[in-house]
């Protein structure tokens, strides 16, 4: 069975993913060489968000169904890995009442990640069975339900997840280099999926307004696959989050993170991987600047007023303006290799 319809789409995928990888790795390396220490953390957080945005893109970009549950899957990935990898000595302290012997074992980082991916992927698959049967706004509503349910469980099974308190003591496994490599891998995966014949079929079917019930079984399965793949990438993002920070709680995996990453995706344009990467870069740097302006700095001798909430307003404005002015985001269907491979048109859907 062939994955790509033509050798051209394969080539485009390789080209595009490579160019984006160079861009993404380039920014990371520049920061490693030139940046202050705190830039490294900032950039690491940006990479985690990039993974989230890519995970989101795999489903949203190809099916055109808005997903608002992505932060929940990221949280699942983070928690499962954290529960597995955290040393028993710490878990005895932090999770004294954990059920099912969760505080009596510890695994190495790699096995923990695999278990986390398996469990989150399986949960994504289960929820996917519901999601793919709904269309448009109905599906989006169920994703909100998933977000609230998962958050609720994180918050109230404090014996396992610690809720709003810190789940601490997770060993620091990753550094900036690791996440750069993972990001490149995920960029390739997302881009290959987009250009594969399944991706193309999905995108073709998403333009159609036919209700999901009228669709062939094939589209169901494809959607389910995209949803699960997205879930796996989100789990990976969660693992990266936990493996660097060392401390997690239920708080970061809720609405504010949902909106932040969603704004990143739709700013660049959810239909393309280039858009996803671009949006993440722009919002990350833009917000950093806005946050600086928020606290009323002195610039060129001018004292600016303190403007708390400016970053929230900026995010909201980005979402509204993109929706109103340029529904497809800044780049629409454009992929980066089109800048270089003139004349050889990428198959458009």
């Amino acid at each position: 069975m062939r994955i790509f319809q033509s050798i051209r789409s394969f080539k485009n995928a390789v080209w595009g993913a490579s160019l984006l990888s160079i861009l993404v790795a380039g920014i990371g390396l520049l920061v490693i060489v030139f940046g202050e220490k705190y830039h490294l953390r900032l950039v690491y957080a940006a990479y985690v968000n990039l993974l989230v945005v890519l995970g989101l893109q795999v489903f949203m970009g190809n099916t055109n169904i808005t997903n608002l549950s992505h932060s929940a899957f990221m949280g699942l990935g983070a928690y499962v890995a954290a529960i597995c990898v955290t040393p028993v000595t710490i878990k005895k302290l932090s999770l004294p009442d954990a059920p099912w012997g969760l505080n009596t074992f510890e695994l190495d980082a790699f096995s923990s990640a695999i278990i986390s991916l398996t469990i989150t992927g399986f949960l994504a698959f289960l929820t996917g069975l519901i999601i793919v049967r709904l269309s448009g706004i109905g599906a989006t509503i169920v994703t909100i339900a998933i977000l609230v349910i998962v958050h609720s469980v994180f918050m109230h099974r404090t014996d396992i997840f610690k809720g709003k308190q810190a789940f601490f003591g997770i060993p620091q496994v990753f550094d900036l280099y690791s996440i750069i490599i993972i990001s490149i891998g995920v960029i390739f995966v997302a881009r290959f999926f987009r250009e594969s014949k399944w991706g193309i079929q999905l995108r073709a079917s998403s333009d159609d307004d036919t209700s999901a019930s009228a669709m062939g079984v094939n589209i169901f399965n494809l959607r389910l696959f995209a949803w699960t793949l997205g879930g796996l990438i989100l789990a990976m993002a969660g693992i990266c989050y936990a493996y660097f920070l060392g401390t997690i709680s239920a708080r970061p995996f809720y609405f504010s993170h949902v909106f932040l990453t969603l704004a990143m995706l739709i700013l660049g344009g959810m239909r393309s991987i280039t858009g996803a990467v671009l949006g993440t870069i722009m919002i990350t740097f833009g917000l950093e600047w806005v946050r600086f302006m928020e606290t009323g700095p002195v610039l060129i001798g001018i004292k600016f007023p303190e403007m708390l909430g400016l970053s929230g307003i900026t995010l909201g404005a980005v979402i509204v303006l993109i929706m109103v002015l340029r529904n497809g985001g800044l780049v629409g269907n454009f992929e980066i290799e089109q800048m270089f491979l003139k004349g050889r048109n990428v198959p458009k859907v």
Partner: protein
Amino acid sequence: MRYPMTQGLRKHISGINMTTIAIIKNYNKSNIREKIMKQFLKNLSKILFVSFIAFPAFGDTIKVGFPVPLTGEYAPYAEIQGAKCMAEIINKNGGVNGKKFELLVQDTGTDTQTAISLTEKFLEQGVIAIGTIPFSDTMIPVAQIAAGYGVTILQAQSTQVEMHTGIVDNFISNVSPDPFTAAAAAEYALSEGVKNVVLLTSDDGGSWSAKTPLWFGEAIENGGGKVLSKMNFSIPTSDWSPQVAEMKKLSTTPDAVYISSIMPDVGVLIRQMKAAGIDAWVFGSDGLDDPSLDSVADSDKSILDKVAFGTLAPSQPGSAMQAFQKECKAMGMPVDGMFPALGADVIMAIAYAVEKTGGTDPEAIRKALRDADSIPVRTVESVSFKKNKSHAERTVPVIGFKDGVRVLLSNTIPSFVPSWK
């Protein structure tokens, strides 16, 4: 490792001069040239960056970093207004040993990742102490990073018990943890003849809302009282009628209800209980210490007569805190509420340690804080970290109301504190 900004700048500039000379000397050796180019770019970018981000500051200053929640869920607990005002007061009077306070403040939007990167940034800029989002999921990683610099996390308002279980060593809270406020409230309740209590718990505020009521219950039972029932609630709750109906159903009428939650939710509970004819005390924790609580009595002065909360510093009229708030208001730097006012105390504690050690070495500062028998602060007379190391030993006030006006009901260090470590 740490250098004041101006020195840092000078260093970089001289670095550039050196590299420029080196470039001229070695223009034909390409591999060296590359290296030098890299060095040059690195210095250039640093200068650009430093001049962009840094506040122009001259002379030796006492830098304190505040990656705090000015927006988002935990914005009400930011200590920044009081800290700024106190720093201004000290600076106006010539600083500490001639050194002035310089506060580096940036909003985290209540986001842990942001707090962490800002912490790293402030550490690089040479702060000697950090105050951040007062929840353990942020304080733990922030403290772990700061530990590498020897810097202390000095929280003005953190009552979370997790921070005192020895996960990190460089953490100091300038107030008493939750079990103390619960115990103080219970002590007062027992003195008022309270026997039967109902506890309202919630996981939404971490251990603060989940465990504090249980500690209160423990202290009541220790004093011969009884816990009638535990009920669950979520934050926010704007209608308590189901819980109130549940209270009325109890076979024994409760003498008191304990809740650790926030305004305006608790205000609704107080009014709905009163409306339902439940004549019980409502006890609470520091979450109730909000200016908007007082306005619950707007329509009926007696409604707050049986409301009291164990809190972090006395906030009734005539208290040191109110005097401080007045002073700040006159300076055009309003400090609204108890949490913002507590910021003054950490600044004073740092000032004390700087004066004591005669310098700004963060490790020495921490040691000085922990060694002192008594450190003068603003909202109470003094605090001491000698006994507890990671949190202050200070009196825990219980605030109540008379005719709708705050009164100090008691202000002691509670004798029985439930075990919590």
